[in-house]
């Protein structure tokens, strides 16, 4: 029941993901961060098989960093997205990764961008995208309220509307979400939306 969704606004891109780590009927933890900061101006929100998710996104992150070390300049969002698609496509007929990815980035020249990359390496640049069962609710909500060049407040409001919809309509809805944003000032965590707090010492 992993939910990942994102949209592009005026000069920024925002992605949100649920934070439950689930194994069959057991919730291991409710504060698992599924949105990795790829580099200073890129975010990779991934959903899917937990092992593949962490291994694949770390692999992409390290290769993006290697490019920057070797060449002295960072990859553009489009280049990083195409590299990710290439790795997924190469592995597809050998040892496929079960990871769906939303790659959000900001380039000085081209502005914000969001790329939809599904687990069989279909790549498409989108204004709004979503994966998982939550996508049935979040995509429709975004279709209704989204317009181009939204402000940060409007976009976060829309993200919250999607989270409310997922919480109320999805049978095994994840309790907590993390929202991250990327704009000209870089990629950073924006907020958490928690209904269940993970604590080590729970009430006896």
């Amino acid at each position, binding site marked *: 029941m992993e939910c990942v969704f994102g949209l592009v606004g005026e000069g920024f891109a925002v992605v949100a993901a649920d934070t439950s780590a689930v194994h069959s009927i057991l919730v291991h933890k409710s504060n698992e961060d599924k949105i990795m900061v790829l580099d200073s101006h890129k975010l990779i929100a991934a959903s899917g098989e937990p092992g593949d998710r962490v291994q694949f996104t770390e692999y992409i992150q390290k290769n993006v960093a290697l490019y920057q070390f070797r060449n002295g300049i960072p990859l553009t969002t489009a280049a990083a997205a195409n590299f990710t698609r290439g790795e997924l496509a190469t592995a597809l007929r050998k040892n496929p990764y079960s990871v769906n990815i939303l790659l959000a980035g900001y380039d000085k020249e081209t502005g914000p961008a969001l790329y939809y990359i*599904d687990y*069989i390496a279909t790549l498409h640049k989108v204004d709004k995208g979503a994966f998982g069962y939550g996508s049935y609710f979040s995509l429709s909500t975004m279709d209704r309220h989204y317009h181009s060049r939204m402000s940060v407040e409007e976009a976060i409001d829309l993200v919250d509307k999607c989270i409310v919809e997922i919480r109320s309509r999805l049978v095994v809805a994840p309790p907590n979400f993390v929202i991250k944003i990327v704009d000209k000032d870089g990629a950073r965590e924006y907020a958490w939306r928690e209904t269940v707090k993970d604590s080590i010492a729970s009430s006896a």
Partner: protein
Amino acid sequence: MSIFEYNGSALIAMVGKNCFAIASDRRLGVQLQTIATDFQRIYKIHDRLFLGLSGLATDAQTLYQRLVFRHKLYQLREERVMKPETFASMVSALLYEKRFGPYFCQPVIAGLGDEDKPFICTMDSIGAKELAKDFVVTGTASESLYGACEAMFKPDMEAEELFETISQALLSSVDRDCLSGWGGHVYVVTPTEVKERILKGRMD
């Protein structure tokens, strides 16, 4: 559901008087869910050769990248662009290489050959070429497309009439197919110019 119907697609190529037209739908779906309504299925190889790829989107993207690579190398070595017949043979060979683990794509190739003679062909996913003098169709709506094209086609149409015919055939066929549609993308190619047009059809 067949793997060829996973993303949904519709493609036509038609022959006119010293010109050709190639048209596709614009939907990118994941089975029943629509992801994008601006997906590109037709690619320009050079000014007088266009390639349409229907079927699984990830394989269409991989195949397109491999073919463009091969064509660019050909262009560097031969110092000229490929003829449509040659390109079709190359696509067929590339597909048959993967005979026992194929790309799940059906290409449509349309080009202007020597003396501005239009050339169209399609092939199945393992490279069986089908040359035609009038029209070729592929995609999830192929049966409807065959019927519509057979009814509307006349030989030796000029560019404008060809555009009308191919557009009507495409839109009326995709309206009967839930997996393709959301508008159309039409290229009409004459010896002097390439006209690209976007069609607005039923958006559902």
